[in-house]
């Protein structure tokens, strides 16, 4: 199978876009997890304060 220069360019472009999208998603997930963990800890800290204080 022969590929033209334009087709190769297109394939490379699509692959790159895919990889970048995955990276971005992974980064977003990591940020979300970090935010959740921090919110969870903030809540646990608030819960340990007696209601008399």
């Amino acid at each position, binding site marked *: 199978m022969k590929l033209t220069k334009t087709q190769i360019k297109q394939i490379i472009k699509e692959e790159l876009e895919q990889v970048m999208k995955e990276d971005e998603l992974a980064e977003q997930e990591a940020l979300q997890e970090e935010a959740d963990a921090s919110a969870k800890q903030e809540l646990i800290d608030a819960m*340990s304060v007696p*209601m008399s204080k």
Partner: protein
Amino acid sequence: MRRLQEGPFDSKSEMNPSVRKAFAKVNRFMKGIAPQAKDEGVPDAVYEVLVRLSDEEKKAFLKVVKSLTLLTSGNVELVRNRGRGWQPHKSGRWKSVFSNVSASVATLLGFDINQKVTAEDYKQASSHLDQIAGRSNIEFVGRNEHPFASTKPEDVESGKRGSKRDLARYEGEEISTLYRGLNSLSPSVIEYMLTTKNIELGRACSSSVNPDIAMAFAGKDAISALFVMKNPNKIGLDAREFSKFELESEIIIKGSLEVETIYLKSFKRTESPFANSVIKADGQESIFDSANKQKMIEMMKLGTRVNDYHLDKLGHFAARNFEKGRSLFFVFVGTIK
């Protein structure tokens, strides 16, 4: 495996059945005694309960009292950080943190209340609470279990009507529902609570059998929240009579809250937590499927106190119970697991 999970304090500090029963009895027999009488030391009935404990049980009992004291009236940060950050020059003596009841009990158990509270005490309290607050350590005490009762303790089911009535009252009203107020919460914390179906309560969380105490605490500043926690398994440690802040009616708990229903309303101290809610959501529904949970998050993003944006977004009819200027108030109803 059990030893590993429970840590090194287990053998000496676990609330064995005798200690648990004695703890419940002290709570029960101190109830209703006037504050002035409490200042004078423990009553005879409590004395009788405590002197019957073995030396090991006395040590375990004392450990429970010391641990809950440090959480309720000591330095919460130090309990949370297992004693890290403790400074000798800032450390007080046990007599300054103990309630009158706890000081009398500790003295009776042979503890010198003039000793200073140490970093090790905080470390032990943290580990100890970690072990006992998540278990079912709240127990019913019948009227016949009083050391000076004219009749002997009996099986409540086959016993007299008075005992049955006491048990029914205890099961139904006293500690079957616990309340926890929270104030000054950031939007990210509320968002986390709306997203998760089981809210972690942390290592040792202070709650109350009195909804008014929780409401007063929640109302200090926006954003406010209230946990209404059903406790069918009687999880927790009853600190009501031992706490320095007796009026708080404190129960120390650990575990997670399986959320059933969430309400959003404007905070009003004197109103029932369930009255006049503006949005109601199913706690077990995923955030992606629950339009009402998403609406709650949107509301929070418009401000921590009710304003015109909230009213416009919801529509003035739907938001007719939202009072402008009041704090957004989230009520989470669920069961302690």
